[in-house]
């Protein structure tokens, strides 16, 4: 049974300020990738953490029969996986152990056999092209390599809803493509609903099915990439003068010309 994710009136309040106000998005169908973009401190990470149940939040997040804001943590962990911005630096676990632990910590459907863990780890190492790092301890990896491992930990759980906080921030162009391809692949093959915070607007334009633009905890634009990202919406959210131009291959690109005061 396939469900869509419906976010309706989500609000998050820190002790002395409102971070997210009445956030609603059009229903997000299975197998799609939604890019969450917006200026610094717009509430993007808070948004994902609220969806992951890591923060108390008001409103309603429906996925089939579940209300993700109110269901039991164990149940939510079966459906949702959240990938924070970075993996801690001083961890002496190897890459294989890191990925296997993501499966073993709380298996989503009963105990898993060592063989199926082995197979899953193997597949994900191959998919992200990090097999040569399999036995390296995490504290010997570069920031970009750690980011790939971090993504591997999230994807290997094959969640119904995958929340990625800046999965490409530390990566070179080639690995950015690796990551976006892997995310897209897991969206399509596992029918996952992916929400990814992206800072790179062009990456968002190229890969996302839907874009949600956040500013000051409010969705200021959302929808298909070309509707959500326009000169006007970028000017409002980022206070920059921008052009959206089609390149010779027909792909839209954002060009930033300067600041608007």
């Amino acid at each position, binding site marked *: 049974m396939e469900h869509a994710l419906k976010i309706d009136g989500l609000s998050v309040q820190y002790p002395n300020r409102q971070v997210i106000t009445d956030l609603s998005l059009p229903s997000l169908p299975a197998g799609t990738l939604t890019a969450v973009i917006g200026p610094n401190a717009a509430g993007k990470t808070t948004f994902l*953490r609220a969806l*992951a*149940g*890591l923060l108390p939040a008001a409103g309603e997040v429906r996925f089939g029969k579940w209300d993700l804001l109110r269901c039991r*943590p*164990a149940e939510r*962990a*079966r459906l*949702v*996986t*959240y*990938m*924070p911005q970075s*993996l*801690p630096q*001083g*961890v*002496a*676990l*190897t890459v*294989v*152990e*890191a990925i296997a*632990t*993501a499966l*073993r*910590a*709380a298996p*989503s459907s009963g105990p898993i056999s060592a*063989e199926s863990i*082995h*197979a899953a*780890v*193997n*597949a994900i*190492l*191959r*998919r992200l*092209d990090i*097999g*040569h790092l*399999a*036995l390296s*301890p995490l504290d010997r990896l570069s920031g970009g390599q750690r980011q790939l491992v*971090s993504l591997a*930990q999230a994807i290997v*759980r094959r969640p119904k809803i995958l929340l990625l906080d800046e999965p490409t921030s530390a990566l070179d162009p080639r690995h950015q493509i*690796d990551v976006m*391809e*892997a995310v897209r*692949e897991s969206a399509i093959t596992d029918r996952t609903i992916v929400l990814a915070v992206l800072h790179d607007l062009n990456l968002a334009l190229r890969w996302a099915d839907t874009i949600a633009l956040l500013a000051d905890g409010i969705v200021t634009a959302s929808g298909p990439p070309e509707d959500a990202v326009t000169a006007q919406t970028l000017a409002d959210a980022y206070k920059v003068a921008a052009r959206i131009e089609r390149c010779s291959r027909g792909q839209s690109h954002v060009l930033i010309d300067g600041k608007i005061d």
Partner: protein
Amino acid sequence: MTSAMRSRRPFFPDQTHTAPIDLEAPDQTGGYDRLIRRRQRVLVALLGILLIAFVLDVAIGPAGLSLDQSLKALLGIEGASRTDIVILWSVRLPQALTAILVGAALSLAGAEMQTILDNPLASPFTLGVSSAASFGAALAMILGAGLPFLPTTWLVPTNAFLFAFGSVLVLQALTLRRGAGSDRLVLFGIAMVFSFNALVALVQFVASETALQQFVFWTMGSISRTGWPEVALLAAALALAFPTAFAARWHLTALRFGEDRAQSFGVPVARLRFVVLIRISLLAALSVAFVGTIGFIGLVGPHIARLLVGEDHRFFLPASLLTGAAVLSFASLVSKILVAGTLLPIGIMTSLIGIPVFVALILRRSEA
């Protein structure tokens, strides 16, 4: 994305097992099985070292029995003199076992503490457990304050235990108020350390000279005051703590990746931390109560274990336990033989033995 055209780095060629998903692709986790076996061998080696330390610790002592005499007395074989049997069974064996159990308890507690606080400098004593125990002991020794109707020999350990355990409960209460993270827990712990140290100083200030001397000796740590009841209690605490810690090995390993991530993997982080703190306080409080403050072991045991087997808690927890036990057992041995006829405080020996091992391992690792 894994196009067959792309050149790939070579993998360990000796692995023939392939994932069922893609039968043509080479195994990517090659060598991991070997790593596992190596870690299993490390655990066995640690156990061997511990046994050697234990045997030496039992066999050697100021009474100057030969190995042969010790063995006979231990096993009750005919020909063993009555005094030998008493020395072995009432002095050496309980003390040697105490060294092992306390080393294991403090090191296991330190390992779990470092994991839940995500801080390699944490030990059971970082959070003021030992300071609280010292204060409890000081109250009993110097002011004679403690629970009524207790035999005087149990007054000091009981007080030390109650204060150590109480300090952890207070810490829990403080942090539970608002889902506090590990950083806040450390800060509260440090506040606790300084508060209890000030209180201890206050009590010391009014102490008589004899009481003060007795107290100072207590803080140096000694395993010479323990007998079979203490050994039994320590063993029971470990028998309770280790299996429950080991059962949480995957949750603890997942916690190494940060709280948010662990929680998203389905680890109940707050409950895990609570249960771990209860275990730590039980282990640390009992140890401190019986042998005084032997603080260093809780820091160095887990570190050596981490350098040897990494942080997969399947191996890390037992390795910490064994390392702590072995270090304290050797410390006990050295404290007996370093100055002939004198039993030096084991707390001092622990640091003197543990630190060189520790530094050597760190240097070796940074060269690798």
